[in-house]
């Protein structure tokens, strides 16, 4: 699905990623690392928001390094950004419609997709006329996830989906991710390693711009370094 090889990337003169290689197949993959490790930068490179300095990115068998963001979306990569990036002055419903309206393989099935995401997040159905910008942080996160799902993606990328959410909603979000990974490839970055290990198949640990650990969820859970640095044991 997604294949990254030797990716280097940065801002101005500062190099953030120093040769990262990573794969996402038909599975759910976690990307962990401390704040500032470069997780968002890596996602930005995949989504055509950051220029590649070196390396290659392949999606669904095609070289995509440097492809524009809107074309990545149309190819089937949906992003739930760290900052949510909703349309605050529009209703929840319009936000969701726009999630699919410009995606060739989704624009014909908007009502069906809408029913699907409402089944996952019933609260959004109740609030569908509300302006997205007036909702709580947790609900906005749900709108962002729902909007991404509207596009019926092949690959769903979530950047710190639990950031700033209260625990009950964090649990709900990860429950949804467990459900979703049956049908869509997922790449998720997280600070909340403990919770997210339950909903991924494999994971990578990114530190100082390099992948330092790559293992199955089970392997990560018992890895002494992960236990010490990320699970606080």
């Amino acid at each position, binding site marked *: 699905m997604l294949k990254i090889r030797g990716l280097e990337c940065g801002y101005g003169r500062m190099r953030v990623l120093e040769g990262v290689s990573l794969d996402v197949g038909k599975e759910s993959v976690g990307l962990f690392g401390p704040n500032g490790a470069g997780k968002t930068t890596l996602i930005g490179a995949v989504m055509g928001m950051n220029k590649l300095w070196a390396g290659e990115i392949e999606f669904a068998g095609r070289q995509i390094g440097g492809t524009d*963001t*809107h074309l990545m*979306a149309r190819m089937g990569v949906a992003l739930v950004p760290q900052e949510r*990036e909703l349309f605050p002055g529009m209703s929840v419903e319009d936000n969701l419609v*726009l999630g699919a309206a410009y*995606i060739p393989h989704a624009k014909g099935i908007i009502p069906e997709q809408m029913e699907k995401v409402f089944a996952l997040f019933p609260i959004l159905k109740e609030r569908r006329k509300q302006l997205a910008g007036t909702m709580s942080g947790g609900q906005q996160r749900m709108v962002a996830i729902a909007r991404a799902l509207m596009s019926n993606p092949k690959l769903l990328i979530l950047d710190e989906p639990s950031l700033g959410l209260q625990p009950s909603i964090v649990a709900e979000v990860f429950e949804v991710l467990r459900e979703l990974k049956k049908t869509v490839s997922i790449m998720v970055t997280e600070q909340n390693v403990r919770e997210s290990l339950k909903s991924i198949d494999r994971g990578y640990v990114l530190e100082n711009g390099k992948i330092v650990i790559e293992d199955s969820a089970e392997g990560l859970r018992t890895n002494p370094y992960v236990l010490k640095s990320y699970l606080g044991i």
Partner: protein
Amino acid sequence: MALKRRNLIISVFALAATAALLLWRPTVLIYGLQAAGLYAAIAIPMGLVLGIVHIVNLAHGEFMMLASYATYFTCKALGMDPLIAIVPTAIVTAIFGWIIFQLTIRRALKAPELNQLILTFGIAIVFSQAINLVFTSQTYKMPLDYVSASMDIGELTFGIWSFVFVAAAILFAGGLNFFLKRTTTGKAALAVGQNPKGAAIVGIDVYRTYGLVFALAIALVGAMGALFLTKSAIFPTVGSPFTMKSFCLVAMAGVGNIPGILSASVLLGLTENFLRAFRGSREWADIVFFVLIIVVIMSRSLKGRKS
């Protein structure tokens, strides 16, 4: 919410002024509304560009001026009425606007605001000076009888042609509202205005949308160029006061607030004609208008600093 309250305040003022004028000097009301229609119809496309492309187009009125010249010489050559030329002019200016956008403004979208202002101001100067070079500063006017149509109510007689500007303003505001709220393309444009990054993430081609919105705005202002020609004489700098006034109206209404532009235009049109009735002096009207603008913008930025 803040937008709604501002609209309410401006509308209440405008309504109160209207009622008072209706009793006291009906012609001030009538000509004030006609002027308001002209201002609003020209300012609305500028508001559209500011709200979605986030560019202050200081060549806005100059695009209208170019459209007026193009309409004038085409109509002269073909013996045509400018009214028939409205739609063709809009189409041609839309294409022209799109080309100007791609060649210049598109490249400055990530530049600091000051650079963008200098760019569009430069475009304005190039337009008016180019016309000045080719056609000199001579004025041109279409001789049309229907523009002097008038109406009598009781002992009151007034010109009615300029109500077309009111119609244009209402049509533009209503049409844009429909486009932005009800059509997918319009919603996408609104989304780009509210969050370009979010728009790209859902597959919207942000730069293409900017180009289309800019072209649409220039089409509207081009249509106004043809309509303006029916009533007024044109000369190379005829557009620049409209740039200024449009900018002030948009600033008064706040970004992305089309109904606010309508009510601010009514306020401006009435104030101007009110002062003219008193003093018979045009300069006075302009001064008061700009004082009003300064007060509004200052009070807003003071409020902004507090919150």
